[in-house]
Structures are given as C-alpha cells and as structure tokens.
C-alpha cells in the first residue's frame, strides 16, 4: 500500500473508515484540539501518540461519538457521526462490574444493546474460549490480576463486533512487565479484535510495535505534529524493537514529541 493519505480534502471517493475533518475542541474556555485533520484507512491500526494532557483521549471520545466537536466533523464511512453506539470503545479503566462474573462482564456490551441474556452469555463464553480464558468465565473480577482485568475489558469491547475499535490507553494502569505481556497478546489477537483499530498511547514503543501508522499530537492546543507510516513487517514480535528501522522510526516520533534533539 502506498503512503497513507491524511488530510484528504474529504468528499467524493473518500476511502476512510473514520476521519476527523477540521476538528477543534474548546472546553471551559480552554482550547484543547485545534484543526485536527486525519483519516483512518479501513483495516489499519493507527496509534495516536502525544504527551499527557494533549487531548488524545478527547479526540478518541469524539471518534467514539461520545461528545461532539466544537467545530469540524467526525466521519465514519464517509458520513457524519451523530452519536455513540456505532464503534467499539474501551476506556482507560477496566470498569469491570463486581456483581458480574468474568463472562457476565464480557457480555455486558451485548446485553446493554438488547441481545438476550442467554445469547450474550453464550457468545461471551465462546469468546473467552477462543482467547484461552475459559477457565475464568465464572470467576468474579476481584479475583483477577490487573493484566487479566484488561484482557476481560478488551474482550467486552471486542464482543460488540463493530468494525472499528477505539482503545484509550488500555494498558496505562499496568506495571511495565504486565504491559509488555499484554502488548504481545494484543499483537497475537489483533486480527480477531476488529478490522480497524485506533489506539491512544503515550508509549512510543507501544505505538511502533502495534500500529501501521503513528499520529503524533503536539502540545495543547493539539494539532497533528507528525503522521508516520510504520512499515515494519508483520507478523511482528517484540524482537522488532531491536531493529535499526524501529530505532529510526522511534527517533522520528521522539523528535516530533520534542523529547529528542
């Protein structure tokens, strides 16, 4: 595939799965996002990278339809996104419900959208088996480790079977080692989750390991500072982080973030 085109002028023939067109957000008099233009091609994995407080999570809520932009539009499949419920979204906290078992938590999204309880549970159990977590189906969430909680939360979102999956720093609260494990796991199951994935992260390595493209947001008010294709071969393993190409891309990202000279 050729170099991805961002800043498409929109309109006819747009191939984007999801796009922000001239999006700006002002909250309580503070300018958070300013003139954001970027598009996510179908079946790609895009990482949104930026310093904390840059508005990455705000941009992700816009893409999820959870709040409208102050100006500009969000488009899904070429038409404006009017509200939530069309893409799958995983927030920063796992938010597992203590009164539901693991299977019950995985089924939450389906039940919330009207799937019968029995059908939702049966699909949740199947999904747990497919991801090798069937032994946890009837366990209450407070017995799970942090890493396992994140997996369950991710499955809950993935089970909605929507074509776009938005992940808001899904491993942000985990310790470094668990985080590495989950990144590896995400690489393995990527194909099963959703065709198109947008991941918010402040971890440059995570972005390069997982994504086909890294979009860097600058300091507030955030604009797109760099849109970098990550042309590393797939399937990838963690070892890719030791390659020269990885280092080169990492340098470019760090420079765009203003933390490397």
């Amino acid at each position, binding site marked *: 595939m050729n170099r991805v085109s961002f800043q498409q002028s929109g309109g006819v023939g747009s191939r984007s799965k999801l796009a922000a067109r001239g999006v700006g957000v002002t909250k309580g008099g503070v300018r958070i996002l300013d003139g954001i233009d970027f598009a996510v091609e179908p079946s790609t994995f895009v990482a949104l990278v930026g310093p904390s407080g840059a508005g990455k999570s705000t941009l992700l809520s816009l893409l999820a*339809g*959870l709040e409208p932009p102050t100006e500009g539009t969000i488009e899904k499949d070429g038409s404006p996104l009017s509200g939530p*419920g069309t893409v799958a979204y995983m927030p920063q906290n796992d938010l597992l*419900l203590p009164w539901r078992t693991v299977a019950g938590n995985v089924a939450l999204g389906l039940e919330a959208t009207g799937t019968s309880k029995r059908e939702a549970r049966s699909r949740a159990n199947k999904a747990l088996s497919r991801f090798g977590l069937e032994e946890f189906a009837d366990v*209450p969430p*407070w017995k799970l480790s942090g890493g396992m909680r994140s997996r369950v939360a991710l499955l809950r979102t993935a089970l909605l079977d929507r074509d776009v999956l938005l992940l808001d720093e899904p491993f942000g609260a985990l310790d470094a080692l668990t985080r590495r494990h989950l990144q590896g796991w995400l690489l393995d199951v990527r194909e099963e989750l959703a065709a198109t994935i947008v991941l918010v992260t402040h971890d440059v390595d995570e972005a390069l390991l997982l994504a086909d493209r890294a979009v860097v947001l600058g300091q507030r008010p955030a604009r797109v500072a760099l849109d970098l294709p990550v042309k590393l071969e797939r399937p990838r393993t963690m070892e890719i982080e030791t390659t020269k190409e990885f280092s080169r891309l990492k340098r470019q990202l760090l420079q765009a973030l203003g933390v490397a000279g």
Partner: protein
Amino acid sequence: MKRVLPAVVLALGVLVLWEIGVRVFGIPAFLLPGPVEIASAFWESRELLLFHAVPTAMEAVVGFAGAAAAGILSGVLISRSGLAERSLYPWLVASQTLPVIAVAPVLVTWFGYGVLPKVLVVVLFCFFPITVGVVDGLRATDPDLLRLMRSFGASKFRTFFMVEAPGALPFVFGGVRLAVTYCVVGAVIGEWVGSSEGLGFLMIQDKNQFETPRLFAAIALLSAMGVTLFLTVALAQRLLAPWTLRRDT
C-alpha cells in the same frame, strides 16, 4: 464462634454483676429486678408476651416494607429529577427534624386506634435513611461507567437497571440496615400513643401496675425482635449482593 464469643462473655458478665448488685444492695424488684427475676417473669407471662408481640412485630415489618418502598421511590425520584431534588429533598430533610413522637398523636386522631397509625409512625421513622442510601448510591455511579454504557449505545433504562441500580446497593443496604433497627422503636412509640394491644401497650400497663419484671421482659423481647430483623437484613444482603460485603472492590 470466635467472633461472637467476646459479645457473649460481656453480656454474661454484665448479667452476673447485675444479679449480684441487686441482691447485695437489696433493691426491690419494682425498681430494678435482677435478670433471674426478669427471666422468671418472662416464663410466667410467656403467652401474654407472645400475644402482644405479634401485632408489634407485624406493625414493624409492614411499616418497614412501606418505608423501603417510600425510601426507594423518593430516592430514585430525587436522583433522577433535578426538580424533585430541589422541591422534595429539603422538605424530607426538614421532616426528620420533627420528633415523630409529637406527630404520632395526630396520626392516631386521624386514623384511629388500629394498625394504620402505627405503621405510618414506623414508615416516618424508617424511610429517610433508605432515601439517603438510594440517592447517595445512585449519585456515586462512576461517570466513566456511564460513558462506557453510552459508548455501547445502551438506553437510559438499561443503564439504570444494569449499572446504576446494582452499583447503588452498598449504599442502599447501609440505609436499610439503619432503618430496620428503627422500625421496632417506631412500632412501640405508635403503641404508646394509643392502642389496645402490642408490647408498647403492655409496657404502659406494666409500668402503671409496677409489674417491672415483666416490663423488662417486654424490653428484652423487643430487643430480640430488632436484632432478628437486623440479622435478616444482613442475611439478605449476604445472599442477594455478596459483593457489597467485600472491602477491596
């Protein structure tokens, strides 16, 4: 067993000291009967006590159910509607500064000597902690959880029953446990004001006739009734919402 042992030992110790004190100082039974005297009064009058215990227990339980209904209804209303919160909540709070014992005679004037005024006294006595539990519990819902439900595309109705209501249960049970300890007191106060049966009625009679040992037996029975109700609620919580009893969630 280990957990209840200290409480049992303390109670036995107090009872023994009480009995010894009453005997050593020769306190007459109509002033302060000893535990042995009270127990024998209880046994002698067991049929009379149980006869009067039934209506009191009934008033307490029915009143408590009414209070739970009123508390849940008002709590949901207040937490859902800003208008209800601003109009209703201040008056519910104000109602709690009224001494129920002052309102009880009015209720008897309106509704007579039957069961209804006692049940109403119990409702007035008990509903407020439940209201507060429901309001606080629903307010404590994690906003991120509401966002998650919105991202699914869930309706408000489903969000309420799947996330907000179960999430409120720890607070609601807190209010219910408080309320259930009040309901026996409420029933007795209702009976004091005007009745022809019930343990409250019997206590007034015993007081006037210096039947002090039986008065104490009635008090012990009321206390047992309250503890039983409390334990029932605690058991219900353990069975229906075991996760609310965990400290690390």
